């Protein structure tokens, strides 16, 4: 069964386009990535699914129910974490979480227990006032708030900002655990590596349109690496001649920089032949991926 299904979902803000003809289907039990540069329409899609904004065209269902007709019913089983979390400043964390829990038809004792467990796991002091929390700690409140009712669908809109690497790890572990228990996850991000770490499939959105839906395994094979080399000897371009998947090749003095798309083994064999003084292999940022991969792909 498809947990989320959108058909030609379209949203205009006045005359400016948010998303156009978005077709998505997220299957039960999936961790589905939703990736694209800022302003591509990720949040617009998510906010439409959540009923925060109203679609201008098309339709969408969650759990097989129409989002415009069954909003409250659907949200009983949805947990949402936005990129920027804002809560009532003068409330204590525990009061906020209990207030949040009071909206769901759940056993009170069990929810309270779960709040306690999650807070302990994420190392969050429940007695503090929201106002006194750091950005990262507010994020933790958001995570607990999104998970306390053990939703069947977890929607995350660029959720990792403000979390330190350790917390991010714990957060991802938590999501994997929820996924194992049966939760479906929609995870939006503009950071490719994040999505790669967590997701099974990914939809790529650009300028309001879905340009591709791929399995992560494909994407990892096809992904680009930005490779920067400092050579000890003179530059010999011929070494790279036999290698496929090289683009944006630049030589400045004794430094070479290029994007590589292909198997890692192939490139390491080539690199082994060169006398290097330094080497850097980086994840290209998303803009670069779009610029060099998807553009050339469309041609």
């Amino acid at each position: 069964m498809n947990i989320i299904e959108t058909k030609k979902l379209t949203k205009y803000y006045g005359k400016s386009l948010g998303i156009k003809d978005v077709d998505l289907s997220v299957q039960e039990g999936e961790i589905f990535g939703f990736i694209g540069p800022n302003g591509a329409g990720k949040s617009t899609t998510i906010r439409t699914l959540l009923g925060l904004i109203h679609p201008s065209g098309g339709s969408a269902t969650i759990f097989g129910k129409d989002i415009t007709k069954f909003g409250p019913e659907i949200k009983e089983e949805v947990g949402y974490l936005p990129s920027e979390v804002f809560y009532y400043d003068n409330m204590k964390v525990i009061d906020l979480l209990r207030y949040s829990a009071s909206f769901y038809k759940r056993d009170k004792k069990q929810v309270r227990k779960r709040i306690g467990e999650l807070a302990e796991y994420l190392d969050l002091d429940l007695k503090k006032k929201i106002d006194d929390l750091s950005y990262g700690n507010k994020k933790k409140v958001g995570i607990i708030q999104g998970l306390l009712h053990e939703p069947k669908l977890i929607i995350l809109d660029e959720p990792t900002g403000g979390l330190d690497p350790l917390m991010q790890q714990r957060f991802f572990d938590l999501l994997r655990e929820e996924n194992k228990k049966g939760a479906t996850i929609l995870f939006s991000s503009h950071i490719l590596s994040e999505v790669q770490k967590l997701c099974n499939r990914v939809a790529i959105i650009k300028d309001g349109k879905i340009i591709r839906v791929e399995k992560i395994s494909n994407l990892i094979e096809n992904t680009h690496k930005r490779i920067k080399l400092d050579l000890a000897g003179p530059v010999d371009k011929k070494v790279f001649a036999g290698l496929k998947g090289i683009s944006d090749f630049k030589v400045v003095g004794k430094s070479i920089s290029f994007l590589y798309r292909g198997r890692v083994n192939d490139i390491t064999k080539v690199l082994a032949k060169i006398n290097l003084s330094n080497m850097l292999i980086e994840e290209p940022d998303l803009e670069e991926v779009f610029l060099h991969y998807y553009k050339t792909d469309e041609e």
Partner: protein
Amino acid sequence: MNIFRRELRAYRVSTIIWVVSFAVMVYMFLMIFTSFTKDIKDSQRLIVNLPAAVRAAFDISIKNFFTIYGFFAYLLSFISLTGAVQAMNLGVGIISKEDSGKTSDFLLTKPISRSKVITSKMLAALSIILITNIIFNISALITARIVVSGNLDIKLFLLLSATLLMVQMFFLALGFLMAVILKKVKSVVAVSLPTVFTFFIIGALGAIIGDDKVRYLSPFKYFDSAYIIDHAGYEVNFLIIETIFVIVAVSLSYLIYIKKDIKAAA
């Protein structure tokens, strides 16, 4: 129910402050009434010598001013003004705070329909206004009992003091409507104060000019105290106008709030 409870809690302190100020105002004013009526001749001369325009602006009726009802009505014109501010702050604030505090994302992704959210908020605001009025009426009655030695027409007295409720209902409804119409409410007071004072000034100017039609433009003049004292009732046409306004404003607020796109916080 949880939203309703939370809102009552959130407005607890401010409501107490408003109620106490009203009670103190009514107590002090009616105490002045005692000393005022002691030397009634001097006081009367003082009032009569005031220019007619000033008397009109301040709602002073020579005939009634020295009765408890007339004096109370005079006090009510001020209490209504402050009460209007309370009601409008409440109406604008209770709805717009989710927007300005960026908590709409939290609240509206909960399993509750928007119409239930706004209903809870409106009912909470209405309850706060009703509580305010009940306490105000009780404290006014008690004070009047202390001040007046003879008979007190309780029905007339309550009819007068209920004009506070009528004015507050108008501004509460107007507050709801403005909260959903305005794109962004940075400061509640910056919306409510100018609105309330504009209506108050229109009403006062109308009274000075002596043009009865201006009364239709200002809710402060819908329930004329002289008329109430003479007829022991409200003017029906204004009662109808107020009712229609409240119904229309509340319905529009509903419709707009339910259809509204919630902007992303950031």
